[in-house]
């Protein structure tokens, strides 16, 4: 067996063994009972996965149906095209900045310092990484495909529908995955071109930036030109969804994948593995840390890699006194683009969209729950950060109420504007958002944040804070946040249910706003008192 593949396959097998061990299967146990158990586990997770994908498809169908003026299959193919291209450009940009290949310390010694064939390393590393990267794409396209089927054939899913669903899932993945492989290969090719010899080529990052600029420019200035330029890709994806000839789409997809692999193969004979190993050393440690599920440590370590060694002092104008907390928060937030934070903001945006769009009361309720969770998490993020630096923040000469307010003001403002942005987007779709919701967003955000903050402060102990361990949001905080946020909204819902007259809705909104403002003020005072009392 090829030596490089031998090492890589052992690494992949080791990762797989970790997941197998989680479900309680021991590969060394060769008994019949254990084999039956493996079969059972495989069937169980297949059915579970199918059920989850179908459930998500319900939500996807709701989203596809609200996009007016387009057929669901066209919308689905457009969504897949945009995500594939966006990911292609983003990964391309990252590859042009740092090594797309991640090597461990062992790899650095066993592979990178030896005269192995660089082309084999590039191909094997890319394909093995792609196997993991492709999974969420496979899930996404299957969900969109199922959603499309649900829109074409409405009604409850029955067992007899299962083969049809499975076939359509296979059909779409057989098209999209080769395209994704091609894009990943091309992104890695860009990384390989940067890793030739010892010289860095910073201008390579202009290629993905140029692509992004062209697409955005076309979207803004000449939308039909953008549609035209994306037509070949969209046609191939349409063939996966069942709106065009599958065989042609499959042949095009596989040819494109082979082209991508060929480009990577041809560009990598002079790939500088030592540089790649040096650049990816910290990332390999991060991956090893997060693999057993230690995400907390990973989240703590990851920003260090993004931050690098240093930065020129910020020129942001500062404010004296307690306002300096705001200055500090701004500088910090401008330094690190944390994927976790982006996810939370995206979550707030999507949940707000769920609140604004006419998706039914059930969806609105869930959207509110999810929105509240994200608001509680984001709203108290800076407070938890400051608690982790107790020795600095506790010494600052501020009243606890001022410090608390300034620690949450920036994230809560972010929450309010993100939610309002979602309402703007829903208006763009043609759905005028409920004015009551828009009015209530600021005070309800404050209520939830302060309620979650109160629980965090109540559980905080100085002995833990001194070693940098702030309390995470727990079920109690989530529940209190939800309850506190739901009270004014419940009041509005109750009053408006009594009468359909317009002025009643206005009075309900004013009362709800006043109640939520009062609750927010009360929670602020209680939380500030708790802040002072931390033992």
């Amino acid at each position, binding site marked *: 067996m090829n030596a490089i593949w031998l090492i890589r396959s052992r690494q992949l097998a080791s990762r797989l063994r970790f997941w197998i061990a989680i479900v309680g299967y021991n590969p060394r146990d060769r008994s019949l009972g254990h084999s039956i158990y493996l079969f059972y586990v495989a069937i169980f997770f297949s059915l579970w996965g199918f059920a989850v994908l179908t459930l998500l498809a319900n939500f996807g169908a709701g989203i596809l149906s609200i996009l007016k003026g387009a057929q669901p299959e066209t919308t689905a193919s457009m969504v897949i095209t945009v995500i594939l291209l966006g990911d292609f450009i983003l990964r391309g940009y990252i590859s042009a900045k740092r090594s797309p290949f991640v090597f461990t310390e062992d790899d650095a010694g066993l592979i990178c310092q030896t005269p192995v064939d660089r082309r084999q390393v590039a191909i094997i590393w890319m394909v093995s990484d792609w196997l993991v990267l492709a999974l969420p794409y496979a899930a996404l396209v299957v969900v969109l495909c199922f959603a499309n089927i649900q829109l074409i054939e409405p009604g409850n899913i029955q067992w007899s529908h299962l083969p049809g669903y499975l076939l359509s899932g296979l059909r779409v993945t057989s098209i999209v995955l080769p395209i994704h492989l091609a894009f990943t290969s091309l992104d890695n090719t860009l990384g390989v071109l940067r890793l030739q010899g010892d010289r860095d080529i910073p201008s390579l990052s202009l290629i993905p930036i140029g692509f992004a600029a062209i697409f955005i420019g076309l979207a803004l200035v000449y939308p039909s030109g953008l549609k035209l330029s994306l037509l070949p890709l969209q046609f191939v994806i349409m063939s996966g969804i069942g709106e065009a000839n599958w065989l042609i789409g499959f042949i095009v997809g596989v040819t494109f994948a082979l082209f991508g692999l060929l480009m990577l193969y041809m560009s990598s004979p002079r790939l500088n593995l030592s540089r790649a190993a040096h650049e990816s050393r910290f990332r390999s440690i991060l991956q090893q840390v997060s693999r057993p599920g230690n995400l907390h440590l990973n989240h703590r370590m990851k*920003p*260090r890699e993004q*931050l*690098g*060694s*240093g*930065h*020129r*002092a*910020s020129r942001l104008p*500062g*404010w*004296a*006194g*307690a*306002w*300096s*907390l705001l*200055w*500090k928060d701004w*500088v*910090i937030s401008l*330094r*690190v683009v944390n994927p976790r934070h982006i996810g939370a903001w995206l979550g707030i945006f999507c949940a707000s969209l769920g609140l604004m769009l006419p998706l039914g009361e059930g969806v609105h309720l869930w959207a509110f729950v999810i929105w509240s969770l994200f608001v509680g998490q984001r709203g108290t993020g800076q407070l938890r*950060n400051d608690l*982790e*630096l*107790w*020795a*600095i923040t*506790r*010494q*600052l*000469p*501020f*009243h606890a109420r001022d410090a608390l307010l300034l620690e949450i003001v920036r994230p809560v403002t972010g929450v309010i504007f993100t939610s309002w942005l979602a309402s703007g987007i829903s208006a763009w779709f043609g759905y005028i958002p409920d004015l009551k919701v828009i009015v209530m967003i600021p005070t309800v955000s404050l209520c939830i944040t302060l309620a979650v903050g109160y629980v965090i402060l109540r559980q905080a102990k*100085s*002995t833990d804070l*001194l070693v*940098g361990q702030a309390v995470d949001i727990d079920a109690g905080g989530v529940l209190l946040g939800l309850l506190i946020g739901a009270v004014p909204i419940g009041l509005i819902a109750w009053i408006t249910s009594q009468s359909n007259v317009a002025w009643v809705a206005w009075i309900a909104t004013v009362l709800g706003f006043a109640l939520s403002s009062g609750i927010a003020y009360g929670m602020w005072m209680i939380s500030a008192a708790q802040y*002072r*009392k*931390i*033992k």
Partner: protein
Amino acid sequence: MVQPLLQAEGLSRSFGEFQAVKPLDFVINAGEIVILTGPNGAGKTTLLNCLSGLMRPTTGNIRVEGYDLYRDEVAAKQRLAFVPDVPRFYRELTSWEHLRFISLAFGVEQGWEGRAEGMLKEFGMWESRDLYPHNLSRGMRLKLGIFIAFIRPFKMLLMDEPTSALDPDSAVLFHEKLIMMAKDGCAILLTSHDLRLAEVLNGVIWRMEQGQLNTR
């Protein structure tokens, strides 16, 4: 009447059943340098954490120049500075930005840059001013913790083993600074295992053992 800069009355701290600091009373006046010594686990760090307001005492009161640390917390904190044994920093702020943040927080808008530059140059950290704290060595991190205390106005300085990771030149410079501060009317309480410090700093030694303080 001249207020003592630090006054503890009936101060104690317990962790469950365990009493880390037994009830104690003491006063530190302006110009005094106190070196708190004692074996590991004697309660020195816990006492300093209580005195700095980082840890609430189980019983007793703490006054900084007459201001109660918990009832008049803003006035008391404006007079107090504490350097922990292992300082912690914001990951995303550079050394210089930490000094700017603390200056702003304590309302020092004028002249802080010159003082910060002077300190960083004196202690050989000027070149590292734009580095993030995780890229500093242990000794440099300790120095940054000291600068964060020194950049703001204070009257009472508390330090937990401040010279443990300093190089000999920096330690000498640091001792000179402490003596000057005491001459300017500040009071200093620091923990150390180095008994010669009392001689170097012209201070007094207090001994702590099993949570009990002996100020004689």
